[in-house]
């Protein structure tokens, strides 16, 4: 076997109040996919950010292709051949997708001018080469890109010339199954091209499917480095969490006859003639491909987007909902999928972010006591095991998964009649996922109606009482739990006839 393309020795890193990594060592060989797993806040992103020169390491050393790199700056790391596809894509809003891919390294003409034509040409070639044809309009402005499209931009940015090792930080979190499959094909292609690949994910079945080796982190400490053939998902979970976890989640049906949400002939810029109901205690799953319009439907119901026709009834009463404030007044809650842009106030504290939606409920004559806020939300923060040095910590400084949990804590604490969850477990680790399912289940038992949009098939299948599939702004007939299979859903989503 050839020598390691990436060799990390004894890396350590601390933040105020947190020792994020201690003495982590790993190697990646050319043509190898190494998975990197661990609970939320275990230190995965920190490790990758050190490799790409974003953070400086406190101790240890890193060698790429046999030469030690100081990783003093992102530029050095890039030039040395290390590339990171970040958990949260960093997109420049007012320039084109193509330009977003080339920032920092524009192709130039002899005159020194930026060669826009060449940039578009290379982009188009890369889209073809990596199988993204038709998914990305290369002239669209950065700010108009969907999460999936943003991810593609990040990927292409990483794969531009000189790449030796590429790390994917939870790349499938914002992708549907179909998109994910495409990504796996890409990773296999890169493996064939002899790159070293690091793959971070909470989806252990993906890890089993795609990787050659798996490195496990727990609280910043390495707890395992195993060949994939020699391990099982359960082994990995043990190393991550330090205990056994029940596999999957099953819930009893609790729905009652009381209809909480009744949508009749709803249409909008994205939707045509949508009608469905959700009863108290019922969880209705929404499946579909990217662009099917699920998120938009949630936002129309929540008053963030305008509807052009139809009625919405909450508990039998017709509600005019023109803004999120109206929706909340009508007892609707909505945890959005894009936590950074829509969910969180990154510069504010955990406690503020978690209690934002219940401010009015907690206040007496407009006055809000911190103690009341803590009392209300800290149970959820504890149940969700949100890892933070204190309740006053800025949410932006938490790990990705913990940020997601803060958004959930907010809406779990609010306990509205109808709760809309858009990709609730995105980027959440296996242990916490089970906990989130239990909390959602509890809420439904308390009589909440839950609309759960998810691209994770197992989650949809195990949690939903009924599943509605969306395609092109329209919905399918609900599939009852007992009839729901992965195949049936995929067929409806793609518009192919069920067998």
């Amino acid at each position, binding site marked *: 076997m050839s020598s390691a393309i990436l060799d990390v020795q004894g890396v*350590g890193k*601390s*933040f*105020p*109040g*947190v*020792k994020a990594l*201690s003495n982590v060592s790993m190697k990646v060989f050319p043509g190898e996919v190494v998975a990197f797993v661990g609970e939320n806040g275990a230190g995965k992103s920190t490790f990758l950010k050190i490799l790409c020169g974003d953070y400086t390491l*406190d101790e240890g050393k890193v060698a790429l292709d046999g030469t030690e790199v100081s990783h003093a700056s992102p530029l050095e790391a890039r030039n040395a051949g290390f590339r990171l596809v970040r958990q949260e894509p960093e997109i420049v809003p007012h320039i084109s997708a193509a330009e977003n891919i080339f920032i920092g390294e524009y192709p130039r003409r002899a005159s020194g001018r930026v060669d826009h034509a060449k940039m578009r040409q290379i982009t188009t070639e890369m889209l073809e080469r990596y199988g993204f044809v038709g998914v990305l309009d290369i002239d669209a402005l950065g700010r108009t890109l969907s999460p999936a499209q943003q991810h593609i931009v990040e990927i292409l940015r990483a794969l531009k010339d000189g790449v030796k090792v590429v790390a994917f930080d939870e790349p499938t979190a914002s992708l549907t199954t179909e998109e994910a499959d495409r990504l796996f094909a890409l990773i296999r292609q890169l493996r064939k091209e002899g790159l070293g690949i690091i793959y971070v994910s909470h989806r252990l079945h993906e890890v089993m499917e795609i990787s050659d080796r798996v490195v496990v982190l727990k*609280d910043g400490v390495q707890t395992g480095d195993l060949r994939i053939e020699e391990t099982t998902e359960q082994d990995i979970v043990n190393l991550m969490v330090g205990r056994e976890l029940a596999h999957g989640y099953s819930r009893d049906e609790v729905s009652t006859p009381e209809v909480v949400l009744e949508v009749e002939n709803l249409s909008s810029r994205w939707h045509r003639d949508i009608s469905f109901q959700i009863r108290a205690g019922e969880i209705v799953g929404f499946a579909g491909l990217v662009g099917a319009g699920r998120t938009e439907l949630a936002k129309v119901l*929540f008053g*963030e987007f305008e509807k052009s026709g139809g009625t919405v009834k909450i508990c039998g009463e017709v509600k005019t909902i023109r*803004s*999120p*404030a109206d*929706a*909340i*007044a009508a007892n609707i809650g*909505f945890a*959005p999928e894009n936590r950074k*842009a*829509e*969910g*969180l*106030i*990154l*510069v*504010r504290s*955990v406690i*503020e972010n978690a209690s*934002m*939606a219940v*401010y*009015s409920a907690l*206040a007496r004559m*407009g*006055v*809000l*006591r*911190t*103690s009341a806020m*803590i009392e209300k939300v*800290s149970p959820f*923060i*504890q149940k969700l*095991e*949100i*890892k*933070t*040095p*204190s*309740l*006053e*910590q800025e949410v932006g400084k938490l790990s990705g998964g913990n940020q997601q949990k803060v958004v959930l804590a*907010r809406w779990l604490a609010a306990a509205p009649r109808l709760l809309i969850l858009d990709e609730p477990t995105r980027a959440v680790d296996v242990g916490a996922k089970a906990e989130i399912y239990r909390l959602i289940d509890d809420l439904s038992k308390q009589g909440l109606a839950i609309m759960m949009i998810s691209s994770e098939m197992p989650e949809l299948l195990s949690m939903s009482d009924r599943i509605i599939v969306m395609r092109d702004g329209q919905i399918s007939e609900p599939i009852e739990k007992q009839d729901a299979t992965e195949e049936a859903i995929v067929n409806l989503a793609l518009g192919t006839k069920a067998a």
Partner: protein
Amino acid sequence: MSITENATLQIASPKSSALKRFTNFVGAENLSLIIALIIMVALIATQTEFFFSARNLMNIGQNMAVVGLIAVGMTLVIVSAGLDISVGSIAGCASVVCALTVTQMGTVTGGVFAGMGIGIILGLINATIISILRVNPVVATLATFSAFRGVAFLIAPDGRPVGVLDPNLAWLGSGRLFQTESFPGLPVAFLLLVLVAVVAHFVMTSTVFGRSIYSMGGNPVAARLAGINLTRMRYAIYAVSGALSGLAGVLVTARTSSGQPASGTQGLELEAITAVFLGGALMAGGKGTIVGSMLAVLLLATLSNGMNLLGIPTFYQLVAKGLLLVLAVAIGQWRLARSEKQQAKLAAAGK
């Protein structure tokens, strides 16, 4: 292990030391302002024995009232990720309106309310331009900065300052309370500022309205999706800024015994904006405190007082002010970097 327990522990422990409680109240970030203030006061006091005279301290308090009131409102605006460049012009309008009300109707209370009232109206106009016409706050208030100044002159008969010699009004600007033989008393204008600042501090830290300002400033989309009505918030915030600018205008009238359409209310916007940013607010919004802004106002007022005490010529005053601003923020940055490094080291050592 979930670290959450520490957090609850922290908040649960009520027996923190007085020093710690002070630091908490002031906010770690603002300590650098206090350090800068102490250094500066030490420098001034070694040069002149008069600095610490009761009269001089009262003087500082009195002189900071006008900018201070505006800086309170500006804090709300900037935390909400807005900006209000029209504050000085609003003060100008209010100064004239107050003077006209007092001279023509003979009522000082009426004058105060009229001044604040016009401030609120102009603030609501700002909010309307921003919300309804969707003009960004900088352009909107640059526009009204100009327009309201024009209006101030148009309200004043022939565009002239309106003299008011009412002693009750003058008391507001230069009166003292609790005056005794040995104690020169506390300036009314200063007490007014303290009162307003305390209320604003309470509002910002402990009310739904205040907390929502932080939310909307930090991420307007997330705030809206959490049920905050951004338009209504904006109306309220700019109305508060307008009311306080109006009150500042009333004080200008009281201090100068004339309604000043422009003189005396010019340049207030830059002064207040300086104070709020110096006090730790972020340009992007979501951060900033009343305590920080007030410390910054105090710092600036003390600097200017000290330099006048020492008879430093204007040109050097300008340079010194620039140096102080840089110094105060740089100390803060340096402390922040150092404390983060230390805390990280502690964490590395295993706390």
